[in-house]
C-alpha cells in the first residue's frame, strides 16, 4: 500500500521557487491500477518520483506498506527501491548492452548468481513476449518492444509496485493497447500494484480502477474510475472525461430537433444492470411520444457507462408528469436544454 500525506514540493532554481506539489494526499491500495491524470506541468512526474524518493518532499510523508520512506537511511532506501519497479516514457535502456544484459541489470546490482540471473531473465523475456530478442540491442527494437524490455527490467527484482511515468506516450495507439494489456496481465498474474501517470483519459479508461486528477500541483478529484467517469465534478475532470465519453448530442442532431413543438429532452443514464423498462413506461403510463435522438455506450475497464437522450413529445402536463418520473433517483435522468 502506498500512502502520501500532506506532500508538498517546492523547487528552487536560480532563486525562483516553483511549488510543484501542494498538500497532496493519496492512497493507493494493494492490487490497484491507479491512474493519475493531468495536463503538462500539473506535477504528475514530481508526484510519482516521490513514491520511490527519487525526489524528496519538501514537507509531508510517503508510506510504503506503512513505513515512512523519510525514516530510511540511504542504503535502506536503495533496498526499498528494489521493491518498486519503474518504467519511463523514453524507456531509458542501455544502448551499449544487449536486451539480456539490460533485463539482468537489477539482478547484477543485487549480486544474484549467474545461473539464477539467466533463468530469471529468460523467464521475464518470455513473459513480455520477446524471448527471441535476448541477444539484440535496444536500437534494433521498436518503441513497443523497448517498453516491454523496460517492463521486464522493472520486474526483474520482483517488486510489489510498478510506477509508469507516461510509459505509452511515445507509442502509437495500437502499441499502447498492447502495453496496457501487458500491464493488466502483470497486475492480475503477479498481483503488482501499478501506478500510471498519463495525460490521456483513454488509458485510465482502459486499465485503471481508481483515478486522481491533478491540476497545479494539487489533486482536485479522486475516486473510483466508474464514479469519476459517470459524474465528474471539477471542470478539468469533465474535460478529461469528455475526451473519451461522448455524452453531448452532436450539433447536427441538435439542429434537427430544436424546433419540434411540445417537446423536452432528457439524458438518461443506463447500465447492464438496469431493469427499469423506462421507454415502455413513458409510452404506456404517460401516453406520450418517445424519440431516441442520441445514445452512447462506453467501456470503462470491465464495465460500461451509457447514456440515452430521449425526446419526449406530448401535452404539457403529461410531459411534466413524465419529467417527474424520470427525475426519480433510481433513474437519475437530467433534463437538457434544447
Amino acid at each position, binding site marked *: 500500500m502506498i500512502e502520501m500525506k500532506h506532500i508538498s514540493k517546492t523547487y528552487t532554481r536560480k532563486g525562483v521557487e516553483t511549488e510543484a506539489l501542494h498538500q497532496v494526499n493519496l492512497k493507493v491500495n494493494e492490487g490497484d491500477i491507479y491512474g493519475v491524470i493531468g495536463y503538462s506541468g500539473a506535477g504528475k512526474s514530481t508526484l510519482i518520483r516521490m513514491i*520511490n524518493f527519487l525526489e524528496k518532499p519538501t514537507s509531508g510523508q510517503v508510506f510504503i506498506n506503512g513505513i515512512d520512506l523519510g525514516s530510511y537511511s540511504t542504503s535502506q532506501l536503495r533496498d526499498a527501491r528494489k521493491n518498486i519497479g519503474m518504467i*519511463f516514457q523514453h524507456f*531509458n535502456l542501455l*544502448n*551499449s548492452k544487449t536486451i539480456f544484459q539490460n533485463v539482468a541489470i537489477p539482478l547484477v546490482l543485487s549480486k544474484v548468481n549467474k545461473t539464477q540471473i539467466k533463468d530469471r531473465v529468460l523467464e521475464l523475456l518470455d513473459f513480455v513476449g520477446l524471448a527471441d530478442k535476448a541477444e539484440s540491442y535496444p536500437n534494433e527494437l521498436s518503441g513497443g518492444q523497448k517498453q516491454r524490455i523496460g517492463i521486464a527490467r522493472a520486474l526483474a527484482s520482483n517488486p510489489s509496485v510498478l510506477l509508469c511515468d507516461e510509459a505509452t506516450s511515445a507509442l502509437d495507439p495500437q502499441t499502447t493497447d498492447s502495453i496496457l494489456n501487458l500491464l493488466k496481465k502483470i497486475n492480475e498474474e503477479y498481483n503488482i500494484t501499478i501506478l500510471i501517470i498519463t495525460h490521456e483519459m483513454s488509458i485510465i479508461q482502459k486499465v485503471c480502477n481508481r483515478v486522481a486528477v491533478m491540476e497545479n500541483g494539487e489533486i482536485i478529484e479522486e475516486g473510483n474510475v466508474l464514479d469519476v467517469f459517470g459524474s465528474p465534478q471539477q471542470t478539468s475532470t469533465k474535460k478529461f472525461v469528455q475526451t473519451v465519453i461522448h455524452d453531448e448530442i452532436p450539433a447536427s442532431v441538435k439542429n434537427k430537433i430544436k424546433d419540434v413543438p411540445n417537446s423536452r429532452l432528457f439524458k438518461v443514464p443506463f447500465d447492464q444492470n438496469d431493469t427499469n423498462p423506462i421507454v415502455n413506461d413513458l409510452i404506456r403510463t404517460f401516453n406520450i411520444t418517445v424519440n431516441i435522438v442520441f445514445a452512447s455506450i462506453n467501456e470503462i475497464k470491465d464495465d460500461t457507462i451509457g447514456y440515452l437522450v430521449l425526446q419526449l413529445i406530448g401535452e404539457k402536463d403529461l410531459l411534466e408528469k413524465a419529467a417527474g418520473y424520470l427525475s426519480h433517483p433510481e433513474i437519475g435522468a437530467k433534463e437538457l436544454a434544447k
Partner: protein
Amino acid sequence: MFETTVTMDQFIQSMIDTFYMVGFSLVIGSIIGIPLGILLVVTRPGGIIESKLFYKIMNPIVNIFRSLPFIILLVAIIPFTRLIVHTSIGTPAAIVPLIIYIAPFIARVVENSILEVDDGIIEAAESMGATPFQTIWYFLIPEALGSLILSLTTATIGLLGATAMAGAVGGGGIGDLAISYGYQRFDSFIMLVTVVVLIVFVQVMQSFGNWLAAKVRRE
C-alpha cells in the same frame, strides 16, 4: 636528397623515446584523469554524489593546468620535476610535465563524455537502487564508452604534439630529432621523414580510435 647525418640507431631510439613518453604519460595521465573526470561529473551540483567542496576546488585546478601551454608548463615546473625524478633533463624529466599536462586534459574530456549520457539512464539506475559506484560502473561508463575512447584518442594525439616540445629539456623523441637535426642542421631528409612518421602515427591512432569507438557503439 637522401643524405642525412642521423643514423638508423638514432632514429629508432627517438621513436622508442616518443612511444615511451606518450605511452607512459598516457597511462599515468589516465589513471589520474579518468577518475578525476568521473568525479567532476558526479560531484557537480545535482550530481549523484554532489560535493560542493570537491567540485569547487578541483574544477578551477583543472582549469588552471588546462590554461598553460605545454612549453610553459614544461619549464615552469622544473623544480617539481627535479624533486620527483631527481633530474631536470632527459626523457624521464619530460614525462613529469607531460603527465601534469595530460591528466587535467583527460579529466576534462572524460567529464564531457560522461555528461553526454542521458539523464534518463541515471534516473533508471537510481530507481533500481544502484549505489553511486554501481551507477558509474554499470551505467555511466558503458554508455559513455564510445565517446570515452574518442576522447582518449584525442588525448593521445595531443600528447604526441606535446612530446615534440620535450626536446626543450633534452627529452629526446622524434620531435626533438626534427628540431635538432632537421631544423637546426638543415637536414631536410630527416625533417621529411619525421613529418611523414608523425602524420602516419596520427592517422593510425585516429583510425584505430574511430574503429574501436564504432565497435563498442556497434555502428
